[in-house]
């Protein structure tokens, strides 16, 4: 597209972003387009309302949770850097990259992907998914016809299954253990368009 270079010049610290996120210039340009598209009032930052305006999110059972994940620590605005950093978490993990032990953990590592999911459950941020927190999420994800009894039973079983230290809650470590067999790199990745 013609606006390619003009876009790039608008983005601050392009090299830094590339380095940090691993996105190509084309990706960043595209995402910047999207960022501006979402930013209705050209504030240069996104607000919760900007996200809530995305119609598809309203029919996503976890939509609001995910929006919240973009605004950690009660922040009300989101700049492009943070925006793209979160999205970078969903970049597919490269398979054949030789692991460099010294390199910092890539932003799209398995752990980071897991952490993103985990924080959706962990509302109060205490590092544990409590029973109540799980019930809340389950209520969102299950159809309305599920009774509270069923809901609680499912929750209890889920916790029981994952809870290794018997504290009645799921810690991040337990969360990771329970999902060991899942091909997370595949599941939690998006093929970002060029």
């Amino acid at each position, binding site marked *: 597209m013609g606006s390619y270079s003009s876009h790039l010049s608008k983005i601050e610290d392009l090299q830094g972003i590339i380095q940090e996120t691993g996105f190509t210039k084309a990706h960043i340009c*595209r*995402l910047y387009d*999207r960022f501006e*598209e*979402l930013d*209705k009032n050209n504030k240069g930052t996104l607000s*919760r*309302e900007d996200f*809530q*305006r*995305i*119609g*598809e*999110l*309203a*029919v*996503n*059972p*976890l*939509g*609001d949770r*995910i929006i919240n994940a973009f605004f950690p620590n009660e922040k009300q605005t989101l700049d492009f850097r943070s925006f793209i950093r979160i*999205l970078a978490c*969903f970049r597919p993990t490269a398979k054949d990259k030789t692991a460099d032990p010294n390199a910092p953990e890539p932003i799209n590592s398995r752990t980071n992907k897991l952490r*993103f*999911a985990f924080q959706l459950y962990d509302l109060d941020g205490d590092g544990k998914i409590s*029973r*109540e927190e799980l*019930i*809340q*999420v389950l*209520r*969102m*994800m*299950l*159809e*309305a016809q*599920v009774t*509270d009894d*069923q*809901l609680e*039973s*499912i929750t209890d*079983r*889920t916790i029981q*299954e*994952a809870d290794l230290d018997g504290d009645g809650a799921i810690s991040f470590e337990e*969360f990771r253990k*329970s*999902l060991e*067999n*899942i091909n997370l790199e*595949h*599941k*939690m*990745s*998006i*093929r*970002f*368009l060029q």
Partner: protein
Amino acid sequence: AEVMGRARSVVGWVLLTALAVLLCCPAALSSLDEEHPDSDTEHGESHGGNETGFHIVSFHWENVQTPYVIALWILVASLAQTVFHLSEKVTLVVPESILLIVLGLILGGIVWAADHTASFTLTPNVFFFYLLPPIILDAGYFMPNQQFFRNIGSILMYAIIGTVWNTVTTGLSLYGVFRTGIMGNLDAGLLEFLLFGSVIAAVDTVAVLTVFEEIHVNEALFIVVFGESLLNDGVTVVLYNVFNSFVAVGAGNIQGLDYFKGIVSFFVVSLGGIAIGIIFGFLLSLVTRFTKHVRVIEPGFVFVISYLSYLTSDMLSLSAILTIAFCGICCQKYVQANLCEQSIITVRYTMKMLASGAETIIFMFLGVSAVDTTIWTWNTPFILFTLVFISVYRVIGVVAQTWILNHYRVVQLEMIDQMVMSYGGLRGSMAFALVVLLDLKHVHEKRLFVSTTIIVVYFTIIFQGLTIKPLVKWLKIKRSQQKEPSLNEKLHERAFDHIVSAIEDISGQIGHNYLRDKWSRFDKKYLSKIMMRKSALISQDNLLSIFRELNLKDAISYLSEGERQGSLMFMHSSNDVNIDFTGPRYSVIDSSISAVLRESASDVCLDMKALENRVKSLKDQEEIVTHHTLQQLLYKPRKRYKLNYSRHKLVHNEGVKQDKEIFQQTMKKRLENLKSSKLGANHNIAFKNTKKEKGAKKKHSDAVPNRNLPTQSLALHADKDTQDVQPGQLIQENQGESNEKSVSDVEGHYDPSDGGISFLITPANNESDETRTGNSKSIPSPPPLPSPTTLDEKPISRKDDHVSQEDLSSEKPSRIFPSYLQKTWMQSYTSLENVESQVSTVSEHVAAQEESSTEIVLKATVDKTEEAKLNEDDHSTQLDREALDVKVQCAETLNEELEDNCPKDAALQEQKPLIIKDSKMHSAAAKRVQNRRSFHRPKPLRYPVLQKLGSLPVSCHIPPHSLEQEETQF
């Protein structure tokens, strides 16, 4: 039941046989007539004297013979279909197409035995002019356009390159084998072999669809195969025509230029066909724009004009199939916008009926036509090699093309998809019709070609059709791991799906298609304006068009119901508030791909697999139940529940329900958040306010929404609806420390469905419950105890919605709303704003009225007493009001029962003494209740107060419904 089923099918078969015999009679009759053509005339002459006489009844078989036989065949075919579907087991294993072919074979055998000539065969004429067009039109008209055009590249590649590849390789290879001499002496050259290749190359729409409909493949695969088979019909015909004319000219006479011409004609014919189709499609759309006053013939236009496009294209020797397909594709949007609802339904059903009927007849005649000794010539090597080559080259073609395509496709076609695609390359009636059409003069081996085609068609349809389902299943199971996913895995995986889908929506990965954006802009700017009715255009802009329509209808029926019953009681019936988000959901379609991407193959028989795995690793009953619940009731990521196209069924979108539910929940939560954040300041003010002011506020909360605040949003009503179903408070656990507390919480929480009301209740609650700080972060539960006033006001506001929709829309255009629900959101939002402003002004205004506070409190008490009285017959229980939660339940039941109300004025009159009596009787209990609920202690009840209540607008003091019912019984 099984015996019954068997009996039914036996009866069905008997019926069928009888019909078949009946069919043979006319055939026999007609053959007799032919054999003795003279007998008739002799007969006539011998009775010549009577010719002038008047026959009361005469038998004119020959007059009706043709249409009669046709009608009978159709009847047989339809009955056969009915019979097949009587027993689900049969159609589950054996595709219908196979059953029909077998039936056709049997019938053909009977006819042949009686007649010794094949009197009924599938003639190309009938096939191309009458049977094929409805099928193709149906495919085009119901084409999921978005997916089709998203995959257009792949579809075109498979359709054009794939078909050419199949044609050329099959033709050349057969020719090569022929040159080795295995096939013996055939009178055919390279061109004839290529011609045969073109005949046999195309994957048949009809055959493929019948099979693919039954194995549930994922969307991407389906649309690719569907599109391919649709378009390659056109390509095949073009290729066929080119080679046919080459053969007619003779190999020796073809010059280099002719090959070039052949290629040019290929493009001219196909692109020309598409162009004609588009023209006619738009013409059709334009016509339907003006058919408003001829509703009855409206649907006819769709069929006539589409058919005309087919004929026109055929006349111009362009690809008629492509024409009618694109005619359907182009017109669908506009036609559906223009026609009235009934006409749309008519069109849909007629379309399905014609297509389905045509398909049935085609398959049956494929069977019947095979019973004809004159067409058969057997050449084992030729037939065998044909079978081998078409299978092998299909696989090679698919794999090679997919390999190339996968570099460009976002949604990859995986190994299993390719297997299904290659194996699903069924040949069908098209090949048969084309091969029959060959000219024996030029193609001397026509009979061999015909026999081979029949064998190939039968082989692919019967053998592959039967085995594809087990194959898919087997592949699936083989590929997937045997281990049953744990609960955690299942749950979190689904969560991941949602997350990824949301991230995709946020990052806008799809729907960014440049060409499509351009097109939709062009469409909006010009095409829609020309093609659509004005009214349709307006609703087109608003994506909630159908939603609006439904509401309008609802409102009208409300009103008329109310008028009919001569009272305002219709305003009560809150329970049939019928919100439906079934409007066209364009936005959903261009959404997450990753769900498909990741699951691109695993949709195939997913449930089956899970079921089997579960059986294998059977743990305990409860575990199974839990898993089952999860399997069934977890929301599916969007995209997964989308069905595309079915020849025989009109597809309903199951996802709508889910979307509706989620949407309601989301909106509810957002509203709550908004309220708590927006009104946070107000609360603080409210805390400082004196009790009187609060009382005043409360009063106005009752009065205001009914008359002055007509803008309860529709979304809010939707919320209300679901409340009964799902008292699913998200953190009730958090609140359940004590009975008391939970009740007060429940009451105090904002109820999004009540808009202003609960907001106004809240201050009182906050005052008492001062330890509780702003609960903006928690997810409040919708209170199960609706105040009666709220219920009353709802229908009114609902009605008013339509009135006030327009003038409200401009106020707050962009606070928080999902783009496609703008209007709804705006209304709810505005209503909020209104509540707020109303309240503040009102509170100042009424602050002086000291007494008014009591009024409200009294009213609350009265309500409570009523509830209690109604639901606990025993008076002694009324006195003991310790169990407050009982009352909460009562309120819930009340809410549910509140469907049809009696005229309230009369009821109120009669009630007054009762209420007073009750209130007085239980004033101690009431007091306790009040204290618990942190209401003000009620002053002694006085009649005047009630009178004052009576003087308020009627709708704000309608007594709870069940009480009225009791009254009417008196």
